[in-house]
């Protein structure tokens, strides 16, 4: 990494960490995830509850925090004219946009590892059992990878939409309403970013949720992210700030 690249990413990281919305979202997600792990551990899931099942099941809900994180990181540039200041400091738009996404990915990865780890530990206490270390590491890695990719996809969509509420509403409707309804009924849903990535974080998934192997699923989600980032970068380069 060249010196300049590091500086650009560092600048974006400073901005990201200085936003109250990012801390609050990350913290709220952590707490909500741990509470859901207690709920899943206590309620039991069909097919018997293991520590990993109860610890990883909350990811399906807590991904909402990472979607918010991705959206807020981008749309915060559009309130109060922050973007004009940003572009005065970093006039090269592609560089600025990609630096933001890299620093966001770092933040999301860190938040995801902590969140998933905490959920698994809490689930372990509630279920009163242990998970094998290899499986736990695999679960954390897969879930953190999925959540980071989801954050990036959300950020790219937000950069295309440029408005907090519409971007968030669209993403939430996809991830929580349209996605689950489509995957129960149609084959193409296998390749949508939510369903394709399902086995990355929930290895025991069956049916269309289990159609793709974790690695194939990760490749499909990554392809969506690359596509969305390509569109958002092009849009960001061409539009007025």
């Amino acid at each position, binding site marked *: 990494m060249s010196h300049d690249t590091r500086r650009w990413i560092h600048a974006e990281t400073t901005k990201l960490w200085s936003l109250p919305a990012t801390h609050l979202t990350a913290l709220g997600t952590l707490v909500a995830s741990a509470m859901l792990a207690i709920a899943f551990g206590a309620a039991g899931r069909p097919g018997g509850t293991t520590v990993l099942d109860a610890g990883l099941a909350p990811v399906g809900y807590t991904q909402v925090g990472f*979607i918010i994180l991705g959206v807020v990181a981008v749309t915060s540039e559009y309130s109060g004219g922050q973007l004009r200041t940003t572009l005065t400091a970093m006039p090269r738009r592609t560089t600025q946009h990609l630096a933001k996404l890299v620093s966001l990915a770092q933040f999301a990865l860190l938040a995801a590892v902590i969140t998933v780890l905490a959920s698994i530990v809490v689930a372990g206490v509630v279920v009163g059992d242990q998970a094998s270390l290899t499986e736990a590491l695999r679960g954390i890695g897969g879930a953190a990878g999925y959540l980071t990719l989801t954050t990036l996809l959300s950020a790219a969509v937000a950069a295309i939409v440029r*408005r907090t*509420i519409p971007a*968030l509403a669209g993403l*939430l409707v996809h991830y*929580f*309403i349209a996605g689950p309804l489509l995957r*129960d*009924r149609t084959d193409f849903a296998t390749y949508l970013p939510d369903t394709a990535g399902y086995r990355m974080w929930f290895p025991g998934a069956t049916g269309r949720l289990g159609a793709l192997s974790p690695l194939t699923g990760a490749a499909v989600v990554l392809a969506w992210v690359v596509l969305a980032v390509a569109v958002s970068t092009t849009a960001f380069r061409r539009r007025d700030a």
Partner: protein
Amino acid sequence: MRAVRALSAYRGELSKLASLPSVWAACLVGVVVPAGVAIINARSTSVDAGFQELAFGVVGVIVLGVVAASSEYFVDGEDNGRQITTSLTVVPSRTRFLLAKIAAVTTVATALAVVAAVITLLLIGQAAGLSRMFGAVVYWVLTALLAFGMTLLTRNGIIPLALLILNTSVVTVTFLLAKITTLAVYFPDMAGIRMFITEVDLPVRLSPVAGGAVMAAWVVALLVAGFATFRRRDA
């Protein structure tokens, strides 16, 4: 005079809602989601066919309720001030302003719910009684007001939007909680859904009227809290 003022405040709120692109998008979602699922599900023979689709379509009025409140406070990309200062200059009485807003949200939510319910039930060929359709419409309107009340308290749409849409998902968080504590059946969505869904796998049975009353009580409590906060704090 009072009636004239109230009426013009109501008209103003309606025209504000109609001028928001998000509201039109919300209406589109509210019709397309249940109708789309109804088309895919066309051969379903469940007694709740059509009504289950409407339970998901409620996401349309969630967006409506959130945007009706949040658009007064925060629109990205606009530097000069918030709509609320203009709104309160035009309608200085905060009570009248809020009542007009609630009336406008109720009007749009009712219209949207009726259109969505008629289209969805026709598509699926559900010959259910009018009372269940009425229940679905009431559920949509109460959900819109719930979203509005929550956003009035937070003044920011992100949290209400996330919580409410998350909780409209196929396996809702409140449903999960109901597996742990029977108290969860008194959450507004779990109670309100009894107004039009008959097959629910929940520990406590509530009649449609009782369910509706529980949900309405939540909405009233939230709106009263929103009202009290809104009257006291700076715009």
